[in-house]
């Protein structure tokens, strides 16, 4: 199958830690070994990437599961073929609010903060319907049981969320690695209020998805790629330090120290899981909850969006 | 500039206005009405009349820059208003501010099949004619009022047109410069047989230069007098002619 002319795959990614397996595959040359030429393209956000995918500009994508599901309802032929990370989103607080709620936030601490400061706590997240918004609401109203009158949710882009948090315009925000670590290094007052698992068990995160056409045309190459993906996930677990050096070439080269990335890999916000099977029920749960709070109209059939063949074949050997 | 173009077919009307009325805007009253004017090849016609009567307007219609409301205008028997081979001296100098003097003078030549060397030669010749040979490289804003007007004259002269329309060309010039240019103009007219339409507010000048004088007057204006003039430069015939015109204009003076 190693043809003389290698298969070309264009892969899009969002520059977050959860895309680390992709960087390792490319950095270690594992794709080349499998006769695949990779072209990596960075995207600011999932929707832009999905648009590019719908236009046939990229073949695979490392991004959140939500845009993929949405794209399918719009008739775009994409499937999830593997998982990359789960439980990415955490809630970080800063300044007086972090002090006020401490490490074990309760409904009362929220109420007390609102009363003491004469204003509600402002928590930044992404727009309604997005994963961060849904899981944050789940944590606030289902887990901690905060009175909705005591908080104010501010929807914005993910990058703006971090800036707003550091600027003190927000009291807390949903963020993910590597920014969690970076933020904490920059501002010691930043504290984690909830981990991803606390917010929503098995909180769905970043998945590997592919265009149906590509799956049909190059099944072997995809299989090889998923195998490499599994290897990369293992490497991260076994050797976070080594992994962080490779990943740093792609993510924040010259902007971050590899040690920061290593800390992020070891932090509570990174949990790499390649198996896509477990994601299905988690997504279903999440969608049910989204429907319950009215930020989604209906439930999309989730299982159809998953194509387990490549993962199953890869673990079988 | 002083080349004779073809044989001046004396007697043919090169400018022919038939029952023309002219106005600005749609609903405003007309400025000029009932203008019948036939100018023969080679004649030197002066147009006089009070300020605001419509002299410039008439010239603009002849040049094809303004459409007559009614009536027919033909130049060289051609009723199309465009591409008339006329040279025009505007009442304001109207130089292109982004061209140096010599380039301004060449402006009219650029539409003609003339080499750039020849253009330059003719522009320099025309500048010499108006006594501005030293000013070729100046910008228009660096000129005095009279100098600007002379550049405008040079520009029209450089084209060497069959028909020359001049709107108070010597208005801003001192007596001596004016006399020089009047003499030049007479010489050119004599040598080349151009047809010249010459607006002026100076009766002496009209009588001195033209062989036919058209007086505009009234509101709306019309041609009130059309005199053949054969007065020489000085002497009693000249003075009489001027005085008579002055009286006639005064009679029709209104505005």
């Amino acid at each position, binding site marked *: 199958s190693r043809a003389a002319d290698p298969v070309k795959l264009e892969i899009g990614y969002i520059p977050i830690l959860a895309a680390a397996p992709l960087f390792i595959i490319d950095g270690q040359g594992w794709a080349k070994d499998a006769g695949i030429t990779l072209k990596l393209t960075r995207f600011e956000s999932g929707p832009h990437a999905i648009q590019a995918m719908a236009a046939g500009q990229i073949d695979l994508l490392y991004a959140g599961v939500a845009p993929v599901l*949405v794209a399918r309802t719009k008739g775009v032929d994409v499937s999830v073929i593997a998982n990359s990370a789960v439980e990415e989103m955490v809630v970080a607080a800063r300044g007086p609010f972090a002090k006020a709620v401490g490490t074990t936030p309760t409904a009362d601490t929220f109420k007390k903060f609102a009363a003491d400061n004469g204003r509600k706590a402002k928590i930044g997240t992404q727009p309604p319907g997005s994963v961060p918004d849904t899981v944050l609401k789940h944590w606030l109203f289902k887990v901690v049981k905060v009175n909705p009158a005591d908080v104010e949710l501010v929807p914005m882009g993910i990058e703006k969320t971090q800036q707003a948090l550091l600027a003190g315009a927000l009291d807390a925000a949903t963020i993910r690695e590597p920014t969690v670590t970076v933020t904490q290094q920059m501002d010691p007052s930043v504290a984690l209020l909830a981990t991803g698992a606390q917010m929503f068990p098995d909180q769905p995160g970043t998945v590997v998805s592919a265009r149906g056409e590509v799956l049909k045309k190059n099944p072997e190459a995809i299989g090889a790629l998923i195998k490499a993906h599994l290897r990369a996930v293992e490497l991260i677990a076994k050797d976070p330090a080594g992994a962080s050096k490779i990943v740093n070439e792609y993510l924040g080269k010259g902007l971050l120290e590899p040690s920061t990335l290593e800390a992020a890999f070891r932090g509570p916000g990174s949990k790499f899981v390649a198996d896509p099977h477990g994601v299905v029920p988690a997504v279903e749960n999440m969608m049910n909850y989204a429907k319950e709070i009215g930020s989604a109209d209906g439930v999309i059939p989730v299982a159809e969006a998953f194509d387990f063949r490549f993962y199953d074949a890869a673990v079988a050997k | 500039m002083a080349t004779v173009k073809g044989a001046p077919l004396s007697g043919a009307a090169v400018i022919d206005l038939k029952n023309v009325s002219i106005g600005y805007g749609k609903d405003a009253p007309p400025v000029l009405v009932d203008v019948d004017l036939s100018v023969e090849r080679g004649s030197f016609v002066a147009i006089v009349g009070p300020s605001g009567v419509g002299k410039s307007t008439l010239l603009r219609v002849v040049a094809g820059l303004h459409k007559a409301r009614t009536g027919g205008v033909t130049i060289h028997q051609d009723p199309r208003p465009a591409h008339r081979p006329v040279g025009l001296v505007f009442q304001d100098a109207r130089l292109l501010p982004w061209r140096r003097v010599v380039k301004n003078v060449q402006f009219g030549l650029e539409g003609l099949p003339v080499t750039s060397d020849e253009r330059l030669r003719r522009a320099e010749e025309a500048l010499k004619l108006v006594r501005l040979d030293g000013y070729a490289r100046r910008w228009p804003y660096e000129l005095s009022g009279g100098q600007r007007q002379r550049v405008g004259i040079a520009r029209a002269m450089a084209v060497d047109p069959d028909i020359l329309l001049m709107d108070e060309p010597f208005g801003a010039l001192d007596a001596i410069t004016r006399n020089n240019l009047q003499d030049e103009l007479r010489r050119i007219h004599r040598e080349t047989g151009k047809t010249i339409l010459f607006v002026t507010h100076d009766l002496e000048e009209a009588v001195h230069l033209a062989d036919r004088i058209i007086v505009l007057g009234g509101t709306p204006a019309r041609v009130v007098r059309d005199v053949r003039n054969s007065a020489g430069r000085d002497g009693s015939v000249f003075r009489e002619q001027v005085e008579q015109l002055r009286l006639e204009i005064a009679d029709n003076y209104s505005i």
Partner: protein
Amino acid sequence: MKTRNSLALSALGVIGFLLLWEAVARSGIVPAQLIPSPSAVPAAFLTEFRSGIWQAMVAASLSHYLVGLSLGAFLGVTFGTAAALWGVWDACQAWVVRMLRPIPAIAWIPFAIMWFGISEAAASFLIALTVFWINYYATYAAVRGVDKDLIELGYAFGQGGLVARLFKIVLPGALPGILSGLRAGLGQGWMTVVAAELFGISGLGMRMGEASSLLATHIVVLYMVTIALLYGVSDFLFMQVQSRVLSWQR
């Protein structure tokens, strides 16, 4: 041209444009989820209108837009005039302006957040910023280009003092250029509304961002058409006012 003729031609142009768009959307040469056909807009409008979202978003954006536009235009014209008139001030600020000018709205967002928090004011600030630059440069050039002869006229008639010169000669003389800047700013302001509302301030931009992240392109297009309409009407009105104000030009 007569107004009626020109209106007919405009309608023709718009209809042609819409037909082309519809044809492209239906032909399938582009993925349908990227370009919804214009015929999908009315339905989308009804849904959004019934739920009251449309009205709320339009009202919010309009207020950001108007505040930002007036502020940016006012400051742009003021600073542009000042720089064009006083050589010393111009020289002082020339390079500072060159440093600040190319900073995109996106890069200003942190500052907007810092100074104004996540508030309506922050959005207006960002809009004001882009409008400011366009007006600054247009005014600068227009004031520089005012006929020096007319300024001289002012001095000759005792109107050479700062205030008289400014309001009687410089600004009227620069008006055509200033108005052209204002007009360009009118559109640039709407272009920025979207960017300015991407960080948690509600309005058309936020709704578009939301819809876009859910790939609800028909909603995106609805709001794009909404913006187009709002802009179109304001630009049209502006042109009417302009042709009044400049009726002294032939």
